[in-house]
């Protein structure tokens, strides 16, 4: 009798341990599905970070680096694009890339402003350009506009988004499979004891262990802010990567608290059923 009881306890502990691993795996799948590089997270980069401001700064820096060698004043590319126009272009680029559509940006308005700036400078200095200089001017304008097109494009977003869509299909199947397995283990634990409070106790151990396992690492990583020390350039890409990492860790921490709620419900149920059992006797 005692031997059977010890065996049942040992088996319950093993099942509870396996259940805690399954719960943790389900949490991890939830973390990746909700907090991973999905469309809503990518869509949050522009409104929730200084991505566009940093992109504008990078673009203007690069324009100045291209302007100095040709002898034009550094500020000739200032104000050819406003921050609102850039933000709109980036949003459109993200939306089209996520839908796997080609995005062609119309820079004619920006080009016109740049040419106006150049003409104003040349008129002010009373400079007449030779044919060679006019050719070089066209090359310079094309260079500045190409630089804008390249900065706005987000090819990595499209690739990541496509892989992520494939991954989420796998995650859904894996998640459902793990939920079914967890349900099976809970059923076994349920059937092993006459008084269901015993079964609930082992499920409570699993829930709390899942909470610990799914919270310790994200909390440690989020507190260390290691992702803010990644050597990534340019600054706007760094902003986006830091945002994605931080968002994933915050989501993981929030989702892990579900197990505390489950634990609270189970502990309450065990307490209530113990009280009612005592009353009956």
């Amino acid at each position, binding site marked *: 009798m005692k031997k059977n009881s010890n065996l049942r306890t040992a088996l319950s502990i093993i099942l509870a*341990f396996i259940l805690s691993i399954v719960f943790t795996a389900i949490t991890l799948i939830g973390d990746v599905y909700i907090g991973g590089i999905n469309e809503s997270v990518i869509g949050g980069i522009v409104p929730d970070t200084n991505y566009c401001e940093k992109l504008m700064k990078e673009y203007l820096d690069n324009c100045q680096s291209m302007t*100095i060698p040709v002898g034009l004043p550094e500020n000739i590319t200032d104000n050819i694009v406003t921050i609102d126009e850039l933000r709109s272009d980036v949003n459109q680029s993200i939306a089209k890339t996520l839908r796997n559509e080609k995005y062609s940006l119309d820079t004619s308005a920006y080009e016109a402003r740049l040419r106006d700036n150049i003409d104003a400078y040349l008129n002010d200095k009373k400079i007449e350009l030779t044919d060679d*200089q006019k050719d070089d001017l066209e090359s310079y304008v094309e260079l500045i506009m190409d630089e804008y097109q390249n900065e706005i494009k987000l090819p990595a977003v499209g690739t990541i988004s496509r892989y992520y869509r494939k991954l989420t299909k796998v995650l859904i199947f894996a998640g459902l499979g793990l939920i079914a397995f967890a349900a099976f283990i809970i059923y076994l634990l349920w059937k092993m004891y006459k008084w269901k409070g015993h079964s609930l106790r082992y499920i409570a151990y699993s829930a709390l*262990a899942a909470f610990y396992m799914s919270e310790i690492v994200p909390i440690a990583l989020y507190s260390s802010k290691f992702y803010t*020390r990644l050597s990534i350039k340019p600054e706007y890409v760094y902003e986006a990567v830091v945002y994605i990492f931080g968002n994933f860790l915050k989501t993981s921490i929030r989702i892990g608290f579900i197990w505390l709620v489950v634990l609270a419900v189970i502990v309450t149920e065990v307490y209530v059923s113990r009280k009612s059992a005592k009353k009956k006797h």
Partner: protein
Amino acid sequence: MAYVCMPLIFTVFGYLIVYLALKPVIELTVSVTTMIMANEVPDFNMNLGNIFEDPTKPNASREYVRIDTGEKVVVKVNPDGTVEEKNNNNATGGGSSKQDSSKYKVPSDTLKWPKNGERYGKITCERIDMEAPLFMGDGFMILRQGVGQFAGSFIPGYGKPILLAGHSMTFFAPLEDIEKGDIVTITTSYGVYKYKVTGSKITGASGSGAYDLKQDKEQLIMYTCYPFTLLSGSRRQRYFVYADLISGPKLN
């Protein structure tokens, strides 16, 4: 008590099993991550480093080694590139005369090697009114703030070629008027180096064949875009100016 202990035991064993099962993946991820991580949050400001201290300032002095005797001496470095030995009380004695700095070596323990992006000197040519800060490296950011040295060439005093780049519309604009025989001066924290211009050359945009960095001669090679006109563009030609070392302390 079991509500505290059992979950903790499960957690410890759970992490242990995951670590043992995924050890190769975890180690690879950690090593890749540490490769792209810095010690601090990156600083995206445009400020470049600066290790340059002008050795020709009034009360400045340097420690050199006499090549003929191997003796360590304290010297005052003059803007014309000559040096005056100071006596034991660190003052130039009444009998101290100006010496050619080529007779001296810079002790290696007093030399601070410039890192990429650091300012380590200045380049001047009085006749054409050229003066620019000198940086190690030749990236966009550096060339906006001064003259940049190709990191694959050598610093003054090493006895090997020095390749410098600058924009033709800013810091190297005066090169348009440079002539054979002009003296170009590079002032570093460790000494003043004088170079005599020996010639110039116009090449294609790639500049291939215009210089030899493997030669065993300290040749100063300065290059910029050509022609020196507005909108000459970076796709046109290059203008190279060559100068040979005439004085300066050797590096030990």
